[in-house]
């Protein structure tokens, strides 16, 4: 038996023995385990699943063992994903620490920072949020104005962030701050880490059109940030931020499957609209639109699988990650739009028992943000036209 086949066999046995039955059921948004100081586990099984996976390093299977990871190769990670999918095992932990800060620390952090912060992320002890966008710095992120004034042993941080995901629930923040007021736009930014319980930090949730409040406005009033809590050099923050944005889109590319949870559009349409005597959906225009969507979905899935294999073969996506972000988010907007079209009047119900009890409408509204957050579709197209097509600037 090859090493990988053996790994698959052992992984399958271990998962069978250790993944609680409850953690193999379909999950909703509320079932996500985010970890953190104030996280309330929804069940004993959820807590046990996190602990047993964290002990094995499998909350972050690709990270080195020394920092709480599993030390798995790309092929081994793919096998672990497949074996977890096989039994519908829920992810034991999801967080911005895993997706974003961790990779930045692995690339730019000091050894002391890696040993301090990474295991806390792997065990789900500290929940992180990302302080990037500001009211005056959206697509033009490098125009950010939150300032960090050098006070000898610390920076005094003052300013405002916006679209900070779950800032009201986070324990720490990784934050882009202008520490070099005399440097150029792109070289005056530093990447700082600090505790959200520090004096001078406050948050205010933003209510979205979907009714939910996943984002906050975050305010800093003279927040003291010790100087050893800077990642990389002073003024290197933009390089790290760009690395993270690319990495985020690359993770999308390496995920080997859809970016977004899929509902069965066809089954929903049959249930809602019905089928006529020819065996066709009883709404020819909706049927035609659905057909075009299905072709594009099959196409995008094939592209995601190719990109996953491409990255496992050791290639980097680089700017091409923008291509997956653009295609994937635009496709999801179409998916959600078709879903509510199929649902008709039932999916106008905001609260109640009809159909999805407002979930389809909320998902549809939430999806409008997909092509804005993490870089708008227009920013993606601009990146591609310059970095890949080499069109003049």
């Amino acid at each position, binding site marked *: 038996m090859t090493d990988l086949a053996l790994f698959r066999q052992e992984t399958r046995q271990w998962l069978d023995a250790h993944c609680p039955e409850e953690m193999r059921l379909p999950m909703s948004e509320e079932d996500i385990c985010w970890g953190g100081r104030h996280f309330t586990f929804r069940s004993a099984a959820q807590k046990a699943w996190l602990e047993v996976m964290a002990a094995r390093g499998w909350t972050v299977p690709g990270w080195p063992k020394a920092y709480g990871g599993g030390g798995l190769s790309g092929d081994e990670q793919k096998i672990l994903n497949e074996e977890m999918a096989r039994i519908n095992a829920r992810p034991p932990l999801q967080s911005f620490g895993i997706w974003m800060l961790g990779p930045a620390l692995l690339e730019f952090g000091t050894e002391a920072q890696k040993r301090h912060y990474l295991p806390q992320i792997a065990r789900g002890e500290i929940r992180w949020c990302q302080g990037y966008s500001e009211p005056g710095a959206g697509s033009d992120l490098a125009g950010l104005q939150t300032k960090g004034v050098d006070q000898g042993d610390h920076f005094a941080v003052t300013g405002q962030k916006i679209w900070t995901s779950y800032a009201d629930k986070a324990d720490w923040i990784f934050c882009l701050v202008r520490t070099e007021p005399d440097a150029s736009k792109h070289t005056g930014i530093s990447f700082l880490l600090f505790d959200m319980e520090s004096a001078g930090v406050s948050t205010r949730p933003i209510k979205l059109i979907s009714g939910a409040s996943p984002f906050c406005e975050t305010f800093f009033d003279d927040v003291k940030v010790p100087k050893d809590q800077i990642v990389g050099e002073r003024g290197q923050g933009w390089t790290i931020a760009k690395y993270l944005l690319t990495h985020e889109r690359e993770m999308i590319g390496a995920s080997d499957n859809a970016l977004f949870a899929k509902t069965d559009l066809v089954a929903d349409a049959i249930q809602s609209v019905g*089928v006529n005597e020819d065996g*066709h959906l009883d709404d020819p225009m909706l049927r035609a639109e659905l*057909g075009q969507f299905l072709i594009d979905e099959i196409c995008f899935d*094939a592209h995601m699988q*190719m990109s996953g294999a491409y990255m496992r073969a050791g290639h980097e996506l680089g700017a091409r990650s923008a291509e997956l972000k653009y*295609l994937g988010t635009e496709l999801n907007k179409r998916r959600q739009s078709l879903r509510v079209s199929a649902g008709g009047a039932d999916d106008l119900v905001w609260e109640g028992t009809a159909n999805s009890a407002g979930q389809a409408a909320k998902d549809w509204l939430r999806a409008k943000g997909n092509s804005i957050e993490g870089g708008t579709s227009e920013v993606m*197209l601009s990146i591609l036209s310059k970095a*890949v*097509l080499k069109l003049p600037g």
Partner: protein
Amino acid sequence: MEVLSEDHKLIAEAAQGFLKAGHGVEAFRALRDAGDDKNAALRSEIAGMGWMGILLPEAVGGVDFGYRAAGLIAEAMGRNLTISPFLSSAILAATVLRAVGGTALQHWGPRLAEGQVTMALALEESTKHRPDRIATTLAETASGLRLTGRKGFVVDGGAADRLIVVAKQGGACVLVLVDPAADGVVVTEQFMLDHRNAATVAFEDVALAQADVLAMGAEAEAALAQALAAGRAVAAAEQLGVAKAAADQSFDYLRTRKQFGVLIGQFQALQHRAADLYCELAQADSLVAAALNALDAGSDDSELLTRAAKAKLARVGRQATEEGVQMHGGIGMTDAMDLGLFMKRDRALSEFLGDAGHHTDWILRHRGI
């Protein structure tokens, strides 16, 4: 984005290198201007490289490289607008022969592989692709088997040495091999918009021998289905090559054409359209590769993927060629530029073996609606 095997990489490079050197768009123009829609000289050259036997078993003189390899060759042909009987003979006819096997494969396989003969599939009977609406009839009479009917859009039919005709016998599907020179066969050549030939063929009480029947019933249906799946996937690959070539020329134009004192590629309106086209081509490339790989692996989703690829390329090919003309402006409308040539080939490939609507409808039926 596909990680090609070393063998496939070599095939792709060899195909593009060979075709670009002597059989590129300039050569295509020369053929067109001379009224040559057959390019007979190329056939023995590509047969010598194994392309005409790309899908045939080694036992009958083929190289048996598989569908992915065939797709890479077709993509290079699309890029270079190469006129050849590759799709009709090396893909459609070879797949039928391979599926039916027996003496037909033993006899015709080596001749196809060596480029001695070409074959065309006589399938269509209406303006749109309707493989399940066949009125051409094979009848058992007192004087033997007789074939009667009429076929259209028989691609490469004007030059083919044999026609593989899809007919019905007592309601069952039957595939017969017909010599176009036989009594009662009337071949009318047509010069198509893409400067290729297709024929309409009338069969008036054509006498056939039992040996001319390649397959009947379920066996005939299976062989036809395999040939159509292969033909669609490889046609999609050729269309991908056409679309990429059109897009590349247009992206080049955006980098060099000046208006208002600046390069037009500096205009965001054009940058975003170019980048959108690039993204669509990138994902279409993955889908074509997935479809061809699925055919090679014989996987269950090969039918779904080949049809999705054919439907997707119909849309992306149109986007690439239409955007190409628009980005070039007036000069894009001239015969001196290649864009019109790509647009015409793209149009023909979209209709060939089913357009986007045909295959989208199949996928919807497959999903139960």
